C-alpha cells in the first residue's frame, strides 16, 4: 500500500492551539473518487482536520500528502482544493455569477471558458435563473447550491464540505443529501465531508471516519461500522435510535447482566470481568404475553405506522429501547417480554471499552 499514490494521505498529523492538543496523531489515506465522511460529536477535531487538509491551518507536526506530494506550508490558494463552508461564506457584495466566477478569475482563466464552466455548473445545480441575484436575495437552499456551485466550477482535486447542511431545515437537508450524493456519482471527484449527523454519514459515505477527542475511533464502510463497531463509542454514535447498553459481568462465554438476565454469547475467546452488553433496538424481539428472556415495563412508545418504538425499563432502572418493524397494541406501564438474540449482541470491555471479538 505504501508505494501506491493516494488522493490524500495524512501521516501522524498533530495540531495544538497553544497548549491545547486538538488532533493527536492521525494517519489516514483517502483514495481517488472516494466519498469519505468525518463524523463525531462537536469538539472532536473533525473541522480542524478538514481545515488542515484545506490549508487554512497548518499542522503542528506530521505530513499532508496530496497525490503523493507533500503540501505542508503550501497555502490554501495553491492546493487546488475547494471547500463548502457551514455558513456558505458567499461574497455578499457579488451576484451569483460573480460568486461562481471569482475563483476562476483568480486562476487567470480565459473569459469564454469561465462563462462556459459557470453556465454548466449553474445548469447542473438548477440555479441558472438566479445568476443576477445577490446572496442576500436567496433562500437557504439556493445559497447552499451557489456555495456548492462555487466549489464545482474550480474542478478541484478534492471537494471539502464543512457541515454544509446544518443550516437547512429537515426537508431541504434530505433533498440536498440526495443531491450531493448524485453529484458525487456524476462528477466522480474525491469528496471529504464533515458532519456531526450520523444519518448523513451513513447515507452518503463510501467510508466513514469516526473521530473523538482528536483521535480516529474507527473507519470503514457505513454498514461495517454499524454491524461491527470497534468500541462502545462508535456503537453508540452510529445508528438511531442509539444502541442499548446493559452493564454486567462476563465469565467464560456467559454474561450475567445487572438487570438479572443471563446469556450465552458466541465469543471468539473466553474472557472474564465486567462488560457492557450492547444490543441494537431492532435486534430485540417482543412478546406481549411476557415470554422471552426477561420482563420489562413499557414507559413510553411511539407508533409511526411502519415502525414502533418502545421505551422500556428493567426493574433495576436500566432502560431498553426496542424498535419493531410492525404495529402492536401497547399501553403504558404494561409488562412485556423481550428476547435478545445472542448473534446480534456486542460486548465491550476494558478501560477503552473495546469490542470483544465474536465468532460469527
Amino acid at each position: 500500500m505504501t508505494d501506491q499514490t493516494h488522493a490524500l494521505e495524512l501521516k501522524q498529523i498533530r495540531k495544538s492551539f497553544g497548549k491545547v492538543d486538538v488532533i493527536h496523531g492521525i494517519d489516514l489515506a483517502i483514495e481517488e473518487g472516494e466519498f469519505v465522511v468525518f463524523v463525531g460529536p462537536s469538539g472532536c477535531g473533525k473541522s480542524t482536520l478538514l481545515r488542515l487538509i484545506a490549508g487554512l491551518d497548518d499542522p503542528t507536526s506530521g505530513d499532508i500528502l496530496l497525490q503523493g506530494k507533500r503540501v505542508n506550508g503550501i497555502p490554501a490558494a495553491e492546493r487546488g482544493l475547494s471547500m463548502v463552508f457551514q455558513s456558505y461564506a458567499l461574497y455578499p457584495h457579488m451576484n451569483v455569477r460573480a460568486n461562481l466566477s471569482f475563483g476562476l478569475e483568480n486562476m487567470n482563466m480565459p473569459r469564454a471558458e469561465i462563462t462556459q464552466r459557470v453556465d454548466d455548473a449553474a445548469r447542473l445545480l438548477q440555479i441558472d435563473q438566479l445568476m443576477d441575484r445577490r446572496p442576500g436575495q436567496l433562500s437557504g437552499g439556493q445559497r447552499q447550491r451557489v456555495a456548492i456551485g462555487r466549489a464545482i466550477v474550480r474542478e478541484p482535486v478534492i471537494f471539502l464540505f464543512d457541515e454544509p447542511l446544518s443550516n437547512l431545515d429537515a426537508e431541504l437537508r434530505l433533498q440536498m443529501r440526495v443531491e450531493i450524493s448524485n453529484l458525487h456519482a456524476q462528477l466522480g471527484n474525491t469528496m471529504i465531508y464533515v458532519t456531526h449527523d450520523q444519518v448523513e454519514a451513513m447515507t452518503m459515505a463510501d467510508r466513514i471516519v469516526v473521530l473523538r477527542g482528536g483521535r480516529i475511533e474507527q473507519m470503514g464502510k457505513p454498514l461495517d461500522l454499524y454491524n461491527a463497531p470497534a468500541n462502545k463509542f462508535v456503537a453508540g454514535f452510529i445508528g438511531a435510535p442509539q444502541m442499548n447498553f446493559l452493564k454486567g459481568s462476563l465469565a467464560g462465554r456467559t454474561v450475567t447482566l445487572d438487570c438479572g438476565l443471563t446469556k450465552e454469547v458466541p465469543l471468539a475467546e473466553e474472557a472474564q470481568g465486567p462488560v457492557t452488553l450492547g444490543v441494537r433496538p431492532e435486534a430485540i424481539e417482543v412478546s406481549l404475553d411476557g415470554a422471552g428472556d426477561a420482563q420489562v415495563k413499557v414507559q413510553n412508545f411511539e407508533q409511526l405506522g411502519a415502525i414502533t418504538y418502545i421505551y422500556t425499563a428493567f426493574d433495576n432502572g436500566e432502560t431498553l429501547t426496542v424498535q419493531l418493524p410492525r404495529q402492536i397494541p401497547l399501553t403504558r406501564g404494561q409488562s412485556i417480554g423481550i428476547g435478545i438474540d445472542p448473534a446480534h449482541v456486542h460486548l465491550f470491555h476494558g478501560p477503552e471499552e473495546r469490542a470483544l471479538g465474536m465468532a460469527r
Partner: protein
Amino acid sequence: MTMPHGHSIPPGGPMRRLTRFLTRTSGRGDSAQGFGVTDVLAYSYLAFGVLIVLVPVLWTFFTSIKPERQVENFDTRLLPYSQIEEEIAGVGTRDLWIFDDGTGEEQLVFKAGPTRSVTDVATPENPDEVFGVPRETLEPLEEVRVAVENYLDPILKRNGQENFHFATYLFNSVFVTVVATLITLLINAMAGFALSKYRFRGRLTFTILIVATLLIPASIILVSLFFVVWSFGIFGSLWGVIIPAAATPTGVFLLRQYMLTIPDELLEAARMDAASEWRIFWRIIIPLSLPALSVLAILSVIWRWNDFLWPLIVLISDPSAHTLQLGLTQFAGEFNTDFHYILAMTVVTLLPITLVFVWLQRFITTGIATTGLK
C-alpha cells in the same frame, strides 16, 4: 400613538378648527392630539441647537456681502447697506448725506471739507455754495446693495488684489485634499486589514500603540514632524502636507473595528478560491468596508481642507504652494486687515466642503450607525 402630555382640543368654530388643524401633532379629527408642553420644549431645544450651529455661519455670510466701509464700522445691521455716491461737477465723486435742519425738511448734501463738529457741506446742485452744519444733523444716504466686489476682487485680481492667486490656492487645496484622502484611505485600509484579519505576534501591541497616539495633541509633535519632513526633502512642497497626514490613528482604528465584523470565513472562502492576499484586500475587504471608508473619506476631506497650522509651517516660504486657508492670511496685514475679503473668501472655501458633506452625509449617518464611531 399619543403624546404623553398632549391634550385633545374640544370642537369649536371654524377658527378653532383651523387652529386645531395646524397645531395637531397626531391622530385625526376631534381626537387629535394638540401641541403640548413637551412639544414646545422639544422644538425650542432643537431651534436653540440649530441657532448655535447656524448663527456664526450666517453671520459670516451676511457680513461677507457687506461693503468694506460697513464691515469696518462694525455695522451690525443684517442687510448690506452702502452709501450712495454721486459725480459732482468740478468736485469729483462724493458720498451723499441727508441734512436735517431740525424743521423736518431734508436736504441732500455732500461734505465739502473734513468732518468737524460743524462740517462744511454743499448741495450737489450748487457745489460752490458751502455752508456749515452740525455733524449730528448729517445722516448717510444709503441703499441696499450686495457687495459682489468682496468676492470678485480677489478672484479676478482687481482693486489691488493681484497677489491673491485664487486659482493656484484652489488647485493646491483640492490637490492636497484629494491626494491626501486617497492615500489615507489606502494606507489606513491596509493597516486596518492587517490589524483585524492577520494573527501575528504583537498585533494587539501595535493596535494599542496606534490608538494611543490619539492621546498626543498634534502641536506636541509639530517640531519633530518638522524635522522629519525637512530631512526627507519634502519641506516646502505639497507632499510635505500630504504624506505626514496619510496615516491617521482614527482612520486605522475605525477601519480595524469595522473589518473585525467581516466574517473570517469569507476570507477563507476567497483563499480556497485561489485568491492572493492582495486580491482578497481589493475584491473582498474594500467593497465590504465601503461604509466605514466613506466615513473616513469625509473626515479626511474635512481635516485636510480645513487644515491650517501644518500647511502654514510647511508651505509658508513658497506662495505658489499656498492653500486657500493660507491664502486667506494675506488679507490680514500688520496695519490693516481686509475683513470683507477674508469673510468673502471664507464663504468660498466653505462651499466645496459643504457640497461634499451634503452629498456624503447619508454615508456618514449609516457609517456612524454601523461603526458606532465618529
